[in-house]
């Protein structure tokens, strides 16, 4: 059995699962942002004179809420496109250093 290929496959699988888990972080901000905007819209509906102030605060709040989703996106992209090469490279150099064959 080719254990090196198995190990590389496990590394790739770990990266893919990690990326999927990281992207789950994108769900929450969307829901929260929607709820915040809904409540702010109701506040504007009840007090139309406060529209400017509420809109400014809402924009800032939405932008900060979105940061969490962006962190997840960035980590997910890094895990898909960058991490596999790094981890496989580290693994292969470790194998070569210990003199384990096949690499």
């Amino acid at each position: 059995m080719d254990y090196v290929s198995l190990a590389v496959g496990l590394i790739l699988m770990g990266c893919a699962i990690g990326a999927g888990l990281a992207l789950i972080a994108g769900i929450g901000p969307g829901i929260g942002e929607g709820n915040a905007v809904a409540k702010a819209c109701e506040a504007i509906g009840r007090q139309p004179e406060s529209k400017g102030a509420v809109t400014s605060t809402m924009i800032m709040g939405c932008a900060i809420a979105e940061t969490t989703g962006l962190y997840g996106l960035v980590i997910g992209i890094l895990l898909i496109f960058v991490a596999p090469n790094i981890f496989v490279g580290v693994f292969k150099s470790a194998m070569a250093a210990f003199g384990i064959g096949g690499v």
Partner: protein
Amino acid sequence: MKIQPAVREQTKAVAVGVCILTALMVGVFLVIGKFDWTVLTGAILGASAGIANFFLMALTVQKAADDMKPLPPEPEEGEADAAQQEGEAAAEAPLSEGAKRGRDRVRLSYTFRMLGLGLVAVLGALLPCFNIYAVLIPLLFPGIVIRFLNR
């Protein structure tokens, strides 16, 4: 649709902050000796995507606020207390139609904006003319700038 002055000012502030932070990031690439023209193209792509994302979000929020029709005023204190005594569920009034529309609009906009940012990130990762780190890092700058502005 007319862009509100608040949206324009905030986008301008965020754009200036993102440009400054991007220049700092390019400087760091220079200092550590990893600078080449892909860093520059990647930084331009990432920074413009981050600013465009913030502007589109602000526009969506503005549109949701503009479309909101006036609602009847909130109940008097005595009535509100009576409603609270009936339990939290009773006190929690259902959302009005305008608020629901705003909520759905923002959620849809968030989905499409995230898809767009994902596309930009994938392009930055796959095309050799972009440095992936220089594309991804500026996407986080608007959040940092806003936190700094709200200090």
